[in-house]
């Protein structure tokens, strides 16, 4: 594709690379990776992108988007991957933001969008509930009307980074008599409200990303409801299909592949560079190939969305293949790290490779990606039903 860039596009690429050189480095990357410094460093990085006006490429221009062409977005993502720079957190910018500017009223837009863009407000997502898993229509959290407020009771689970969050966007049941999908509303809830409590969940990698969030008679103003009462499922669905698109993680996969290539060129195995192994080469070629195919698909889907279409079956496709690929690159990275991948870093080792820890952590954490955001089995059902009419 590169051969076809126009001179303007090449100029843009230079600008992006130069921005990254000046604003992102290994030190910042390390702080983003470490749990203790993760939040502050992530916000710092978002603010740099915000200052440049490059924080929300997918948003409409009137709300702060970049008015980029598909090719520009492609160039930008590619440059991020080259620089091994992570994307900004998705909860505000890719999840609740689009819901607010699409379905929210003017007051809500004015109140919430700025904090989402500049990183001042950290959001988390309140969908899943204990026992309900990916089955959102079975949700139990109830909101009872009391004057201008709702009173919320219930529990949300698998809430990523709730420990850092200022706000949560949540689905709650406002009508228990309606059909399961129809009595649900979409609320924005201040995490500092009285009655909100967060309990950590230690996950498979031994780290704390996930939480259980409990609502015990929490008061939420009706003004914090998005759109109409009992129509929350409609808004959530629109968000879900976008979320799945976001879940494909192509830029992340490219980044990991870059790292692996760089390190495998340095590392020796039995006297020659790891990268010279035909097996490693074949695995990299397989993944690169699948990744390219998926990337083109994503570009197509994004182009269709830009023209006003809603991603349907395609978003499931992206989620399914994207998460499979994420696990494939993580597994590859782990194998390249070899024995070094199995030792935790908190013991302050003097030996081994610094990327062993990254390999281990990402491999473990990545195990969830075929489960969350609607498990891959659910995605296949969606494709069979809505995509193929089976």
């Amino acid at each position, binding site marked *: 594709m590169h051969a076809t860039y126009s001179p303007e596009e090449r100029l843009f690429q230079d600008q992006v690379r130069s921005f990254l050189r000046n604003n992102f480095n290994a030190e910042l990357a390390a702080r983003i990776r470490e749990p203790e410094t993760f939040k502050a460093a992530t916000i710092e990085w978002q603010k740099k992108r915000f200052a440049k006006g490059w924080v929300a490429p997918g948003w409409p221009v009137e709300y702060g988007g970049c008015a980029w062409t598909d090719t520009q977005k492609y160039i930008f993502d590619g440059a991020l991957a080259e620089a091994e720079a992570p994307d900004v957190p998705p909860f505000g910018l890719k999840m609740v933001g689009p819901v607010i500017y699409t379905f929210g009223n003017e007051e809500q837009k004015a109140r919430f969008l700025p904090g989402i863009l500049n990183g001042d407000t950290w959001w988390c997502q309140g969908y*899943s509930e204990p026992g309900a*898993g*990916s*089955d959102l229509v079975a949700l139990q959290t109830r909101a009872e009307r009391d004057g201008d407020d709702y009173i919320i009771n219930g529990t949300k*689970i*698998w809430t990523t980074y709730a420990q850092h969050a200022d706000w949560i966007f949540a689905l709650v049941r406002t009508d228990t008599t309606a059909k399961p999908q129809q009595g649900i509303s979409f609320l924005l809830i201040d995490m500092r409200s009285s009655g909100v409590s967060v309990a950590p*969940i*230690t*996950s*498979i*990698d*031994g780290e704390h990303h*996930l939480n259980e969030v409990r609502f015990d008679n929490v008061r939420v103003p009706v003004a914090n409801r998005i759109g109409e009462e009992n129509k929350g499922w409609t808004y959530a669905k629109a968000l879900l299909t976008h979320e799945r698109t976001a879940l494909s993680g192509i830029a992340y996969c490219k980044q990991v592949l870059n790292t692996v290539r760089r390190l495998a060129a340095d590392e020796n*195995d*039995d006297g020659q560079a790891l990268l010279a*192994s035909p*097996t490693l080469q074949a695995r990299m070629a397989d993944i690169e190939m699948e990744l390219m195919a998926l990337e083109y698909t994503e570009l197509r889907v994004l182009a269709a969305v830009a023209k006003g279409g809603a991603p349907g079956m395609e978003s499931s496709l992206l989620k399914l293949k994207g998460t499979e690929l994420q696990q494939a690159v993580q597994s590859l990275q*782990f*194998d390249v790290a*070899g*024995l070094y*991948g*199995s*030792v*935790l870093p*908190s*013991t*302050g*080792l003097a*030996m*081994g490779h610094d990327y062993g820890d990254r390999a*281990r952590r990402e*491999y*473990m954490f990545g*195990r*969830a990606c*075929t*489960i*969350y955001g609607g*498990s*891959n*089995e659910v995605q296949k059902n969606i494709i069979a039903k809505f995509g193929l009419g089976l």
Partner: protein
Amino acid sequence: MLPRDFTEEQQMFRSAYRKFLEQEVVPNIDTWREQGIVDREMFKKAGDQGFLMVWPDEQYGGMGDRDFRFEQIIIEETANVYGGDWANTLHSRLVAPYIDRFGSDEQKARFLPRCVSGEIILAVAMTEPDAGSDLAGMRAVAKDMGDHWLLSGNKTYITNGINSDLVIVAAKTDPENNPHAMGLFLVERGMEGFERGRNLKKMGMKAQDTAELFFNEVRVPKENVLGDPSLGFLYLMEGLAEERLIGACGFLSGAQKAFEVTREFCMQRKVFGKPLSKMQNTQFKMAELRTEIDVAQAYVDQCVAVHNRGALTAEDAAKAKLYTSELLCRMVDEGVQLHGGAGYMDEYPISRMYCDARITRIFAGTSEIMKLIIAREVFAENFVEFVDRA
């Protein structure tokens, strides 16, 4: 499930050992995991009851029965209570046999009784910080000083590294003239210059103490050299088939256990109003895995029978290691996926099994190395066709 083949005595041994594990291991394993090390009394307790080392001759305190099925029972029952991170098999069947095979009668009399009783805990030190498992790249050196050897070098990833009282250390003995000359040295706790690094935290097998060991001009008396100090490389090779078989028994037991906890979960967990076990996807996946596990069990049991006759080749053992480690990883991966979000939580055993599993495809020879070993047999001139193999 095909019936298996154990003697009545072995069956009784199994029941007795199972009771022992329930009393001594089950109540403590979580504590050991948290502290990152098994209490060293555990070895003594097992020794007192005759469960630590079965094979040594009666004069050394063992039962003198070298039937490998006793080890298989120990491995299976230990895995069945999630006790795999107690490195009893490493002590009894990976390290102690070196003393048995290459030690003098004096050395056997001096060490074996206390190994059998659990007073002495064993480790073996081969891997080095930069050489990985590549024995040719080893840097540790022992210098012949007439009446003793002077041993220097660093070793890493040493299981039982903290608990061990007697460590078999591999070192080059004639690095200038003969890079393949290697000796095995019996280094005892308390010898001057023998230091231990900190206990390394690992992503799996958390109760196993894994450490770096430092040897700084340790004076090793001549009576602590195992066999010929130039033939250590050969000695290490000789044990490989058995080591891989031990691995295979362990990995397969892990796969069996992971299958069973997943099966239980699928029967209890309901999704969209139906038990997971009634979904066709679950049935197909579990049937495929059941088939592969049963097929693997027949192979491993057959390897054990052949090994009991002293006829197990390195290549057949490599097949067992390759097949079972890959199967274990497939099993825990599918297990986590079928568990959904629960599989991602530390409190469910499947998540711990997932963490333990991944490294099995890497240590003791990666899957790629196993394939090269097997390929040598496949393309050897003396390949025997299947009808002539009877």
